């Protein structure tokens, strides 16, 4: 069973309590009306999809109900760290170097 820690509840909980919310730190354009279709499609659909560490949104839907962000390795499924929404994205390259050592 994959355990995910929730930064709001401050406990580890089974994966079944959580829902995946896609890639984190994607800002909605300030003026959507100024965008053409191509730019809008870039915002809506295009994601980084890396083989490695990715900052993602997760929601503790069957717990506190809150969204938070997590850095997960997309190959090993290992959660490197979790942090609350609104907090700064950690340096993924530095985390990857730490993980490699």
């Amino acid at each position, binding site marked *: 069973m994959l355990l995910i820690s929730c930064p709001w509840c401050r406990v580890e909980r089974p994966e079944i309590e959580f829902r995946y919310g896609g890639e984190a730190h994607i800002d909605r354009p300030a003026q959507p009306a100024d965008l053409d279709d191509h730019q809008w499609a870039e915002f809506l659909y295009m994601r980084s999809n890396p083989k490695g560490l990715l900052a993602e949104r997760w929601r503790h839907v*069957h717990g506190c109900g809150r969204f938070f962000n997590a850095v997960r390795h997309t190959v090993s499924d290992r959660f490197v760290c979790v942090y609350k929404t609104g907090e700064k994205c950690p340096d993924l390259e530095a985390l990857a170097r730490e993980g490699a050592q």
Partner: protein
Amino acid sequence: MPDTALYAPATTQGASVVSRPDVTVTRAAPLARLAFRGDATAAGKAGAAFGASLPMAPLAANPVGQRAALWLGPDEWLLLAASGTVGEEVPWALARTLCDEIATAVGTHPHALVDVSERNVALIVSGPRAAALLNTQVFLDLDEGAFPVGQVTRTLFTKAEIVLWRTGPDTFVVECWRSFAPYVEGLLANG
């Protein structure tokens, strides 16, 4: 029985769901239940009016006599209140009064307050094997070190969402939605 004045076994027929020497599951008498959402300021005002302050620490419960405020999320609480007389009916007058008093106390500060008295039913799971019975469907570590007395959390009971509150070393309260109750009771009876 739970170590809180809040929950009393229901007096209705069929209230005893499981009755074994080492574990019992009993339906609890109806309570007034309120769902409250708001920030810390709103929670402070609501707690003063409710009679039990709303805990700010994660997974905490604050039972005070026949009132209890349960932390569900950083801006969400479940408020429970008993009227003192065990009946088969939800204590509507109490629910109405509490709603009015909390709404007045919080005033225009942004918040949400909903009477959910009829949404939930509670099951009292008690006995030396209470944790083992719950662990047939609840995927949490219910050892007292990991889930101490007083801790409350929303979690999953197989497919049904529940609020699980440890009110004593061998006593848990399962708050589940009324429509999920036959499912939860059935799995506990067969667990």
